[in-house]
């Protein structure tokens, strides 16, 4: 029977396919063998440590009556997690049978379930639920580590949530679209889905309840509408939408060779944010000014060991070569907070990781690691123009320290006989409110600036952008955000320091008039949205927008800002 479920459209595109429902924490593992038995045991025990940490963290958060009631369950779960019978059984299965940790978990679970379901006592019999929960958590932890997901070509995944790493694999496997019960349109997954052109609907809890494996679905990632068992008119709509999206894409593609020039003839610099070789190739093909943000975390997070100077140098050099003489901006390591960490770099167990040891703070604490990274970047400058960008700067002292280290690295490399560029510009990310406010005091220490609007908004508004219950409260359309952006951009322009916005705000065509009106001349975004931004730039009259900036800054709330946006679009 036809059923429409609505969520929030997080990534445009229309898709049709059979549903594949992934309930939270279910074991659907088939027989798998591993070569590296010791490695698999390490993987299992690392997952056990992760789950133990999660439980301890949960336990600490509980208070009052809840602590009593749920605490007992947690105690039981903690004991199950450390149960010698369970663990030895798993170790034996992996060691003797060479099973994967996932499969060993499943076998062990089935074995235990067999015994429990045979019990007379109904209460004890139902303790299998507790064991399932513990095993489910373990399985999820294993999952997060290797990001292993199974998707089937032509299917639409319906899940409670989806991690950014999973999206990449799902698309590679040919999954047509993803529908999640939770999530927000501004989450990392949503951002990534847009860049992958993978239709995504988030915030559709009904989907998980009403959709079964094999149901035919039509998903509109634009409006967030999901239809189960579509009727004739749904199919017609889907076809129309598919044509519409294809036409849009075609029109956009014509802009590949066009300049990013406003109606009144001002060229705006569009840089590309890049993470992969494909991104770099695409950025080059789209005529990007260069790479405005190359995140180096991926070098670290995708391998289980810290990459040495040579490995990093080769990656940066290839990036520089890929852009054939256009400038490449490489950001120093920014792990912590919301990024998984496999290399043991970030300090775990921080009560408040968003405010913890991350970005340049971590680099300055681990100076040997930082020096290695700077050396690799500076060496790459021998092959083409390189700029170095420092994340999470919050005060002048940090820029002083980084400058000093960079000067030493450059001197060392010259002495060692390396061919490096005469200038390796050093820039600061402006993403912590204190840096934005104190910028007049240290702008002289930066050769260029890049505003990270995602973190700046999050820190300025004290709103976690991944917190679903806060939903739409997270938005750069807040007078405080706009005023701070305006003051930073104005200062940089006055001091003739190149300044770009590299957050999500720069990737959204709807925000282009706002940023242009404030005097921003450089945008950095993932190649996937570059043509849409270019189209927006080409439809703007810069002098008209500049004249309307005061009105924008007078807006007292979101409605006022949106009114301004509607007025300039008219």
């Amino acid at each position, binding site marked *: 029977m036809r059923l429409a479920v609505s969520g929030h459209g997080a990534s445009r595109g229309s898709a049709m396919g059979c549903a594949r429902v992934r309930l939270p924490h279910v074991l659907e593992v088939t027989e798998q063998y591993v070569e590296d038995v010791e490695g698999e045991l390490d993987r299992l025990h690392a997952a056990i440590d992760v789950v133990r940490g999660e439980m301890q963290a949960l336990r600490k958060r509980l208070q009052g009556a809840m602590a009593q009631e749920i605490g*007992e369950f947690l105690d*039981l779960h903690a*004991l199950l997690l450390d*149960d*010698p019978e*369970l663990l030895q059984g798993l170790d034996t299965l992996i060691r003797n049978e060479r099973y994967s940790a996932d499969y060993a978990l499943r076998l062990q679970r089935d074995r235990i379930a067999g015994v429990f379901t045979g*019990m007379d*006592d109904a209460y*004890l019999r139902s303790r299998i639920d507790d*064991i399932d929960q513990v095993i489910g958590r373990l399985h999820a932890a294993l999952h997060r580590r290797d990001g292993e997901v199974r998707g089937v070509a032509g299917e639409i995944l319906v899940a409670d949530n989806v991690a950014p790493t999973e999206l990449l694999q799902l698309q590679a496997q040919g999954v047509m679209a993803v529908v999640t019960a939770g999530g927000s349109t501004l989450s990392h997954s949503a951002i990534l889905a847009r860049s992958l052109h993978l239709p995504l609907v988030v915030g559709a809890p009904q989907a998980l309840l009403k959709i079964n494996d094999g149901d035919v679905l039509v998903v509109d990632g634009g409006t967030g509408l999901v239809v189960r068992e579509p009727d004739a008119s749904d199919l017609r709509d889907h076809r129309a939408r598919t044509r519409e999206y294809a036409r849009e894409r075609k029109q956009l593609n014509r802009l590949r060779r066009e300049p990013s020039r406003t109606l009144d003839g001002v060229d705006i610099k569009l840089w590309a944010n890049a993470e992969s070789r494909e991104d770099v190739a695409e950025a080059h093909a789209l005529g990007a000014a260069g790479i405005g943000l190359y995140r180096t975390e991926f070098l670290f997070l995708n391998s289980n060991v810290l990459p040495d100077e040579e490995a990093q140098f080769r990656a940066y050099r290839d990036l520089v070569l890929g852009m054939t003489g256009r400038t490449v901006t490489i950001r120093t390591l920014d792990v912590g907070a919301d990024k998984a960490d496999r290399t043991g770099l970030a300090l775990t167990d921080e009560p408040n990781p968003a405010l913890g040891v991350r970005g340049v703070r971590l680099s300055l604490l681990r100076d040997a690691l930082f020096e290695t990274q700077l050396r690799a970047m500076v060496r790459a400058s021998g092959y083409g123009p390189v700029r170095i960008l420092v994340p999470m700067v919050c005060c002048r002292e940090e820029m002083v320290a980084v400058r000093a280290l960079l000067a030493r690295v450059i001197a060392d490399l010259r002495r060692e006989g390396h061919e490096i560029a005469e200038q390796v510009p050093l820039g600061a990310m402006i993403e912590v409110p204190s840096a934005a406010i104190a910028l007049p005091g240290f702008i002289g220490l930066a050769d260029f600036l890049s505003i990270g609007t995602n973190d700046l908004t999050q820190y300025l508004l004290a709103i976690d952008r991944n917190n679903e219950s806060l939903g739409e409260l997270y938005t750069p359309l807040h007078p405080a955000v706009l005023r701070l952006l305006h003051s930073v951009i104005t200062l940089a322009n006055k001091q003739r320091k190149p300044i770009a916005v590299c957050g999500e705000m720069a990737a959204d065509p709807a925000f282009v008039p706002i940023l242009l009106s404030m005097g921003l001349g450089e945008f950095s975004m993932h190649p996937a949205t570059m043509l849409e931004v270019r189209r927006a730039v080409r439809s703007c009259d810069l002098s008209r927008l500049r004249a309307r900036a005061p009105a924008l800054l007078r807006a007292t709330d979101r409605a006022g800002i949106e009114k301004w946006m509607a007025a300039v679009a008219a």
Partner: protein
Amino acid sequence: MIERELLVANRLGLHARASARLVQVLSGFRCNATLIAKGREVNAKSIMGVMLLAAGPGTDVVLRVDGEDEAAAADAVAELFGRNFDEDA
């Protein structure tokens, strides 16, 4: 090695909560611990094992401990059984 005969006298028997208390108490000792009841032996340091014993109220069980701190472990467990696992009722 020490063996100690004990009676499950609390209201619910060796249910999840009492089993958890037993395993928690034993986890503080280094000795091996086995619980024997109804002709079956289980690892007394395994919460699953203890629950699977399904020792209801009135069941006679034998605790077997083996290791350097076995005497203290046996006393601690006997005391726990004596307090009816701190159940209120």
